[in-house]
């Protein structure tokens, strides 16, 4: 078997973080020297509703093992209502992905404010552990990014 399934395997997790809350929260986690798994790659977005469902599919296609979308708590959106759209969108997206065979743990969303550094750390740690337990994602992934692909 390839490197991917051995014990050193680390999942690749993509986290879309809202600029106004979670990204600041992650920054605060750093300032406070909190430790969280390094397999999470953060992408800063202006609002959690900026995240197009196609981004999620794209991430799985390009070899991510899990995707996390983080935004402001309902009511706290910098643009007043952005995260209400996010809420509807991703509740449906999560179910549609599950319906197509993707474990709901692989795609999660969470509200984390700018002051919740500890919640960011805990969320990321938990998601990372869950995905590690699930193993590498092969569903929707282009052959190049999964074992057995003709690289």
């Amino acid at each position, binding site marked *: 078997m390839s490197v991917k399934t051995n014990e050193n395997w680390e999942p690749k997790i993509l986290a879309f973080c809202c600029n106004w809350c979670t990204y600041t929260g992650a920054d605060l986690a750093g300032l406070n020297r909190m430790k969280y798994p390094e397999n999470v790659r953060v992408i800063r977005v202006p609002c959690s509703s900026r995240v197009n469902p196609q981004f999620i599919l794209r991430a799985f296609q*390009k070899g991510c093992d899990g995707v996390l979308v983080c935004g402001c708590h309902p009511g706290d959106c910098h643009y007043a209502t952005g995260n209400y759209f996010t809420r509807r969108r991703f509740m449906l997206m999560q179910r549609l992905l599950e319906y197509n065979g993707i474990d709901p743990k692989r795609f999660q969303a969470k509200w984390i404010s700018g002051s919740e550094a500890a919640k960011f750390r805990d969320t990321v740690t938990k998601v990372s552990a869950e995905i590690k337990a699930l193993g590498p994602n092969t569903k929707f992934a*282009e052959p*190049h*990014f999964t074992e057995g692909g003709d690289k």
Partner: protein
Amino acid sequence: MKFKKTDLNEVLKTLAREYTVFAPIVENEEKKFMPWAESKDVEMEGLNTIKPPKDVLFPNVEKMYRYKMGLEGFIEEIFPEDTKRILFGIRPCDMRSIDSMDKVFLTKEYVDSYYAKRRDDATIVAFGCTEAGRTCFCESMGLNPNDAPSADVMMNVSADGEDYVLEARTEKGEELVKKLEGLITDGGEAKKDTKCSLVINKAEDLDKKLAKMFEHPIWDKVTKGCIGCGTCTFVCPTCYCFDIDSENYGAEGCKYRCWDSCMFSDYTRLAGGANPRPTKKERLRNRYMHKLSYFNERYGETLCVGCGRCVEKCPAHLDISEFIEKASAAELGKEDK
């Protein structure tokens, strides 16, 4: 030469030792040409497959070369694997469509090396139709549903219905038949009385007539119902257009070619966004013209083989055979020169 119908699996098994045998197999509720294996369910007779066997010689997606940029950069061509293939049991219409593709990919100076490789490696066993679908009109297009002249081996059901009768027509075909020693016996009379269900009135010089009909009002009428999908082109055994695109992963990637359809808007879209075929009228006109006129002009034969797949599958029930009749009967106006 002939072999017993009951020996079909034995014959395929023998051939599969040396070749990859593509046979009409029913799997996933769909009949299509795919590599034979003992567990597969072969259906020789009955109606033709929905998807044509062209993808054995001209795959839907074919990688052409891979590359990497940077200091360790390289470009490496990818060639089709060195496998001897048999296309087993394709119908005369599909055989004729392969003849047309040969003309496109192998003649007129430019030889497509990918197609040529697959074509050289392939031996074709054609099978005379035993039953005509309701949209079959190959006889009207000058074909015979019982016989495929250019096949390496022609196979028919015998007159008594017990055997398959073989006739090797080329060196490749004889080589193939040799492998079957012990399974085949001499004699056998082929049953060749299948008739198309659809007979259409096609004008003898339709290609020349159509060449004058580019601005004819007939196009407005026939193209209105089209919904602009690519179904007709992807089920067509002679549609050979492809697009070249690349897949990139960071600094490396590969170029591939894949089937394209003239019914799509991006088929003729230019870099600046202009599109010389802006609506379905121009696109469908191009498709019909290509099948019935342009190809004749270049290669001397009609590109439509009358397999009836597009007639059966078109979601808007557009019917090329109906168009042929209408165009044959149409009167030329003064603008049609």
